[in-house]
């Protein structure tokens, strides 16, 4: 009897603790204007791929005018059927991933609003551009500076994992899963439909999220889990017992100064976890058991990213970071970022040591800054998050890993993918083009901005660019920066007018393309009739002088920039001349024949379109070419011999 009583007491203890659990405080003073604060109760039924939820949205009007409407993102409605804007634009494919069988209803998803209430009154509304945006008619105008609380009940049906969100076997990635308010600035709402290419834009706030799941599931999530000491075994636990159902448990999660919230869940029987702390950040890494060989690489990538981001920008301020390496059959969820949560991507085995897992992890971590804390509008200016993050990724890969591949004879530099993509479509859309309007989205959002920022760095110098980046990130953190904010800060720090740079590279579609067109030898002579002062004609024999060198340069692109030419003459003398680059053609003469020439020898223009014909020598460097020709041919011959061609 005494034992039974003790057990009852022990059993009730967690419930008592549950009642006492309070949200932790991350920051003594808010880092961001907390305009959209959410308290969410979510009940997940994994076998049905559904989530039933209720939330309290406390929203503050930070605009300059009152509003009588409030738009909500219902992102999951992008997967409702083939007629959503998302599906029409993407055709069921995104980032190389394809949606599930379209005839299977479980491939599709939706977000269904059940009720919306304000101050006890039920609200109505209507869909916007498509069903991924719902405009709520408020019962009254909400004045600037006023705060209102909406109570919303909804049901989310997750699609088969595709385009960041959904389920796959026992894995669920809950992203864009709850009704989320748009951004009100001045007198204008920004709440775009869910487009195929573009991502998101939201206000900062606090999140208190209770997720009710069946026992045995692990949650990898944004924010921090509120833990308790289980009296039964004395262990610290983050999943609380559900007082109403002993087969379920509740994760009580909390976060401050973030603008989105996501979680992934999977059975703890076939999911691994590694926890570690680096520079005061508690990192939790969730991964597939078969991916265990890659985990040290992920850890190193996270530590490197945390260290370099702190060195270059500012210290990662949140106390937690969660990394998920999703299963192979949930590749639609990988390579994505959410505040304090990143989705990595890897394979079980990497025999050639390509730095792909590192690239993904570093890139997604970079988004903690360029999206997470510098919350730019990803729909209308996608380059501010993807491009800046690609720039961060290139620099990290070069500085810490010496490139994407660093073998004895062949290297892929950190900016290889950006350079390749940029050079293949150098005159792609202006960087400021809206994401969903751009025909060259991948180039315009990711790779061209990386090259443009490298070009800016070459223009301003490494030190100045470092200061620009540090100032930009610090001043615009926890705000909604635009490209004009970046330009303003870059001009202020560098003390230079960047109008022409902006018109050429950011707003323009032109290319920087100079090349050596011709190198020749001028055979000069002197002599002939000479009329002296006495007007007497005197014939001097024709003599040949020392030959001169001439080089003809061409500007092939639209962008005009001064460029340096280096030459070595047959006398051994080296010279550098600066061309203003304005004319289409120009030639320079030198006192002796040219034996070597190079345009842009100091690499002032990483973005230069043609480096093949930016150098010249009378003799071809054959040895290296012969080496690679033999390597390629031997590989082919050995392949044919390998298959036993008889």
């Amino acid at each position, binding site marked *: 009897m005494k034992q039974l009583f003790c057990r009852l007491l022990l059993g009730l203890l967690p419930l008592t603790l549950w009642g006492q659990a309070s949200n932790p405080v991350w920051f003594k003073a808010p880092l961001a204007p907390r305009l959209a604060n959410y308290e969410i109760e979510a009940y997940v039924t994994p076998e049905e791929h559904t989530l039933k939820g209720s939330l309290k949205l406390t929203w503050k009007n930070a605009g300059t005018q009152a509003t009588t409407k409030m738009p909500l993102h219902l992102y999951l409605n992008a997967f409702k059927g083939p007629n959503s804007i998302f599906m029409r634009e993407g055709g069921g494919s995104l980032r190389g991933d394809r949606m599930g069988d379209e005839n299977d209803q479980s491939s599709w998803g939706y977000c269904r609003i059940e009720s919306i209430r304000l101050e006890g009154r039920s609200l109505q509304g209507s869909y916007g551009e498509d069903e991924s945006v719902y405009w709520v008619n408020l019962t009254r105008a909400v004045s600037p500076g006023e705060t209102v609380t909406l109570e919303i009940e909804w049901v989310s049906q997750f699609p088969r994992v595709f385009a960041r969100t959904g389920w796959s076997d026992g894995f669920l990635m809950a992203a864009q899963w709850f009704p989320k308010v748009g951004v009100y600035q001045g007198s204008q709402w920004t709440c775009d439909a869910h487009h195929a290419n573009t991502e998101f834009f939201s206000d900062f706030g606090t999140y208190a999220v209770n997720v009710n799941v069946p026992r045995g599931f692990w949650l990898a999530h944004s924010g921090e889990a509120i833990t308790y000491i289980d009296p039964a075994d004395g262990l610290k636990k983050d999943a609380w017992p559900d007082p109403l159902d002993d087969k379920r448990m509740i994760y009580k999660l909390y976060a401050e100064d973030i603008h989105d919230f996501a979680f992934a869940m999977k059975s703890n029987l076939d999911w691994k976890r590694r926890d570690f702390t680096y520079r005061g950040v508690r990192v939790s890494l969730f991964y597939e058991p078969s991916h265990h060989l890659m985990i040290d690489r992920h850890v190193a990538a996270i530590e490197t990213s945390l260290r370099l981001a702190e060195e270059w920008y500012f210290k990662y301020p949140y106390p937690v970071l969660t990394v998920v390496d999703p299963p192979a059959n949930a590749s639609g969820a990988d390579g994505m970022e959410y505040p304090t949560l990143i989705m990595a991507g890897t394979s079980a085995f990497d025999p050639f040591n390509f730095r792909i897992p590192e690239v993904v992890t570093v890139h997604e971590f970079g988004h903690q800054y360029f999206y997470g804390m510098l919350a730019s509008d990803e729909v209308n200016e996608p380059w501010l998050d993807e491009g800046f993050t690609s720039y961060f990724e290139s620099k990290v890969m070069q500085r810490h890993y010496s490139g994407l591949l660093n073998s004895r004879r062949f290297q892929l530099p950190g900016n290889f993918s950006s350079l390749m993509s940029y050079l293949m479509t150098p005159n792609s859309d202006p960087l400021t083009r809206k994401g969903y309007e751009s025909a060259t989205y991948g180039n315009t959002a990711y790779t061209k901005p990386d090259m443009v920022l490298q070009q800016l760095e070459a223009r301003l110098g490494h030190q100045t660019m470092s200061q620009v980046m540090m100032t930009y990130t610090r001043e615009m953190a926890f705000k909604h920066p635009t490209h004009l904010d970046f330009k303003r800060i870059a001009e202020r720090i560098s003390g230079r007018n960047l109008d022409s740079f902006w018109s050429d590279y950011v707003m323009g579609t032109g290319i920087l393309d100079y090349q050596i067109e011709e190198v020749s030898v001028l055979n000069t002579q002197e002599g002939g009739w000479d009329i002296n002062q006495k007007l007497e004609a005197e014939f001097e024999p024709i003599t040949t002088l020392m030959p001169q060198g001439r080089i003809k340069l061409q500007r092939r692109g639209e962008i005009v920039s001064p460029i340096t030419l280096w030459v070595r003459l047959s006398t051994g003398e080296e010279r550098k001349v600066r061309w203003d680059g304005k004319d289409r053609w120009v030639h320079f003469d030198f006192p002796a024949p040219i034996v070597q020439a190079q345009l842009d020898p100091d690499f002032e223009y990483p973005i230069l379109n043609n480096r093949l014909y930016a150098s010249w020598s009378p003799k071809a460097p054959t040895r290296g070419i012969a080496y690679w020709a033999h390597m390629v041919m031997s590989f082919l011959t050995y392949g044919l011999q390998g298959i036993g061609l*008889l």
Partner: protein
Amino acid sequence: METFQTSNEYSPQGPWAFIKKSLIPICSREDAEFILSWVALTLAGAWSLKSRWLDLMTYSNGSSMLAQDWGTRLSGNDLVYFIKGSPTITNVESWVGSVFILLSSGILFLILRSGWRLQAHMLGQSARFSPWIKGLGDALIIGFLPTILLGWLLSWLTDSLRWIGSLPMMWAAFVWTILLPMALTSFWMMQWSICRVQRLLEPVTSYKDHLRFCFYMIWKNIGSWLSLAIMSTALRVALSYGALWMAWRWGAGTSAALGSVILIQVGVTILNAGILRCLLVNVVHFLSNQHFVLKTVEDLKRRVL
């Protein structure tokens, strides 16, 4: 009363039984032609590639200096500049050049023809085109599908290794993934070889009997043929990757290093060609033995009856 001694000579032998005999080098014209064709493919192919790439870099009585350090270090960015910069590069053909395609195709034909000449010469017959090309059709009919099925079975059995999570197992699975398709292609090549040699040895049987016999010759000794294919492929691949690894280590920082690389690669090409020659000869020995045994049995039957 006559008695027959049971000896190896009068019993059908598997393909491994003739390996030793096949290894004996015969310096016939056909042997030399077969091996030199392979060497020609390596050298002429590399020469034409080199010429093409030099062409693409050439301009204004000179050349780009982009490839200046390629003998020691090649950057992916250089390749992008090369591919992007050259105005003529629009597809693979323009990248490798029509000379390379024509030359390589011609030498490949020469390799196949010299292999066939070698086999025909062993049988004292002329290397007619008809059995060679018809043998190819035979091998496609009786060998293609079974080889695919065999490959599917073998890869299915070994694919699970990949997911065990142990590094040696993953390496083993990776090597097997490369080796298996090569070995199976080699296995099918032997089927083709059997079909064409059989057409020379016994050209008058019905087509159905011919196919049945050729199929039977491989599948009766499936373990031996498969192990021969896998082991000889493994040997060729090991030699090849060894040469490539050495070339990778040495680079071409000096002309001597480049010369050594070429010598090693030619040497391995000759060794591999020697192994392939051995397989060609082995098929002839194997089929000759089969025919000898069958003929002896037929004679015996005739004498008994």
